[in-house]
């Protein structure tokens, strides 16, 4: 291709010019648009000293096979210097099924760890005191159940709830939009989220009860602009829903957190994080008249883009991940997961995970990028792009407002079809060779040596089912029945479910038993409008 004639576009399709100068920032006002880090509108970062005060949390997402095997992986990661844990649950757990239910067949422990009851959760954290490490849980439809199990494990470990640190993903809207692991329709799901938030505010003050996630939206094929717009708009939807349920915005807003993707387009990603902070602060102020600065600051976790990794020449992924991780740090992330080189083939091996973690440690301790706050602030290109992403996202906000909000937009399939269109364009660009992916459509090699991958034995499912059946026999049936009946009554009466779910969990009720009740009382969500 003749580079001189080519139109240069970034991953969102925004045309990029050859050079940016002060003239591209005509209306620029430092105090209004950037300001000092830790001050409104937080463009430069949420803390005054950023990484000088505290490095980001190096939090590797992990989970496979049984709780016992994942516990071993957690302890390995902690030994290697990881500073936070993040639980990957298997598909049956994400959908609220037990390992022995027919729909779980073949999937137990495959994509994450199989958790059926509080006993599994206890095994998962054996020799890991919950007051010593922050724990993030990627769980949405059944979030209230897994959170309750985590709390009961803390009880059994003798750890006070007030010392628990971490994040519950608990973001059902992006499930309907992109990730598609759900139980019930939006209304009862949003109600459960509010129950969790209400509990967390009083009982687990250091815990983030929602992580509003753009990661999955991006993985489903969205552009950076769409990721930014839909994620922040989801966040505004949760705020509105919580206020309507009677919560005070300044009580819960400081506990909200976000989760973004770190994709290939280096500067666009950095601009995306900066625009996200500014847009969130401005919208929270405009829409909800929020005044407390703590309620306006957007904190986020980032994960490098799984969908940007290639199965071809997998060692190239190490380089991609390093660049993506660097963008997240230059963009001011509070916590980061780096993907492993083998993740387009299987769940990662121990060696691959270690290399991914070392990538973060090298950025933190060798590159010098953490020495100063927002080092790219003031760069003509970066500021122009930050402005542009903010205004493109606002364009989506206007459309979503006109549709009557995100739940309505999801019902008519709007964000889903926007993302699908973008995913198709991206694939066509790769297929036509217009977009080069090294090792896939350029610089290919006819023969590649296979890399070693992690295998999960077929026996995991069999053993998990056997243990679950044994445990079910050992429970007090009377106590279990009474707890489940109480839960069902509360659900039917629209009561707060946090305590009834915790009691059911203490009575050894399983994820599937509790979620079957949700399916019975609230119904199951079915996707409509597949375009």
């Amino acid at each position, binding site marked *: 291709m003749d580079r001189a004639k080519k139109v240069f576009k970034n991953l969102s399709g925004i045309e990029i010019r050859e050079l940016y100068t002060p003239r591209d920032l005509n209306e620029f006002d430092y105090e209004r648009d950037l300001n000092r880090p830790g001050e409104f509108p937080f463009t430069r970062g949420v803390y005054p000293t950023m990484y000088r005060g505290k490095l980001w949390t190096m939090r590797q997402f992990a989970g496979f096979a049984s709780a016992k095997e994942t516990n071993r992986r957690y302890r390995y990661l902690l030994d290697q210097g990881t500073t936070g844990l993040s639980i990957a649950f298997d*598909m049956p757990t994400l959908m609220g*099924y037990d390992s022995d239910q027919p729909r779980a*067949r*073949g999937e137990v422990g495959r994509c994450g760890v199989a958790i059926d009851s509080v006993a599994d959760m206890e095994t998962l954290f054996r020799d890991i005191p919950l007051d010593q490490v922050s724990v993030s849980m990627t769980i949405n439809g059944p979030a209230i159940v897994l959170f309750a199990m985590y709390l009961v494990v803390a009880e059994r470990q003798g750890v006070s709830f007030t010392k628990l640190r971490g994040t519950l993903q608990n973001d059902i809207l992006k499930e309907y939009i992109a990730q*598609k692991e759900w139980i019930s329709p939006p209304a009862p799901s949003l109600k459960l989220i509010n129950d969790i938030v209400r509990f967390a505010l009083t009982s687990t003050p250091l815990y983030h009860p929602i992580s509003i996630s753009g990661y999955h939206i991006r993985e489903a094929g969205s552009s950076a602009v769409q990721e930014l717009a839909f994620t922040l708009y989801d966040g505004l939807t949760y705020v509105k829903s919580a206020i309507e349920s009677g919560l005070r915005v300044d009580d819960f807003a400081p506990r909200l957190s976000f989760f973004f993707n770190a994709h290939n387009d280096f500067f666009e990603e950095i601009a995306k994080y900066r625009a996200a902070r500014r847009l969130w602060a401005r919208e929270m102020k405009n829409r909800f008249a929020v005044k407390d600065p703590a309620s306006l600051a957007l904190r986020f976790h980032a994960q490098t883009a799984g969908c940007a990794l290639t*199965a071809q020449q997998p060692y190239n992924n190490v380089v991609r991940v390093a660049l993506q991780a660097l963008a997240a740090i230059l963009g001011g992330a509070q916590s980061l997961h780096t993907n492993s080189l083998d993740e*387009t083939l299987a769940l990662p091996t121990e060696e691959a995970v270690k290399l991914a973690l070392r990538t973060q440690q090298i950025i933190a301790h060798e590159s010098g990028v953490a020495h100063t706050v927002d080092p790219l602030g003031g760069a003509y290109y970066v500021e122009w792009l930050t402005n542009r992403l903010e205004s493109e996202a606002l364009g989506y906000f206007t459309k979503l407002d006109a549709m009557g909000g995100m739940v309505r937009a999801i019902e008519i399939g709007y964000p889903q079809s926007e993302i699908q269109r973008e*995913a198709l364009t991206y694939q066509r660009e790769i*297929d036509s060779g217009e977009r080069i992916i090294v090792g896939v459509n350029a610089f290919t090699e006819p023969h590649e040596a296979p890399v070693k991958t992690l295998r999960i034995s077929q026996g995991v499912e069999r053993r998990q089912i056997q243990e679950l059946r044994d445990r079910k026999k050992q429970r007090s049936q009377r106590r279990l029945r009474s707890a489940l009946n109480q839960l069902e009554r509360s659900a039917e009466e629209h009561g707060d479910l946090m305590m009834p779910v915790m009691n059911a969990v203490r009575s050894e009720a399983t994820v599937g038993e509790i979620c079957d009740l949700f399916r019975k009382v609230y119904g199951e969500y079915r996707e409509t409008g597949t375009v």
Partner: protein
Amino acid sequence: MTSADSHPLRVLLAKVGLDGHDRGLKIVARGLRDAGIEVVYLGIHNTAEEIVQSAVQEDVDAIGISIHSAAHLSLFQDLANGLKRNKANDILLFGGGIVPAEDLPALKKFGVKKIFGPGAAIDEIVAFVKAFPGRGRSSKNTAAKRHEL
């Protein structure tokens, strides 16, 4: 009978199991349809049995399964067994997603004709499907509910 005859090839596309990663499946559905192939799109969260029943009712020539949950060994086996039980194992069974190379021989034994890995181009998949001469199926059309993509 070949695909050049009166009716176009009909392909059922579905995800099997609980896995919701449907980005690839939707792209393939679009690509096949644009190439003149009729697509019966079942979407996500189907059991193997549900897929087999739909395939039989819809009288499809081929079934394309997308899977990213690492449950491919169990679930493709269920699909193959289901097709056999329904005397429909002349339906072309293929798939795509995350499947390690070492599992390919086992899938082949179940009757899976091809797995497209990450990085496969739409044209490759279209060419593979078009090379299939089609089943010698009856001309009856079916009225089962269909989610057109």
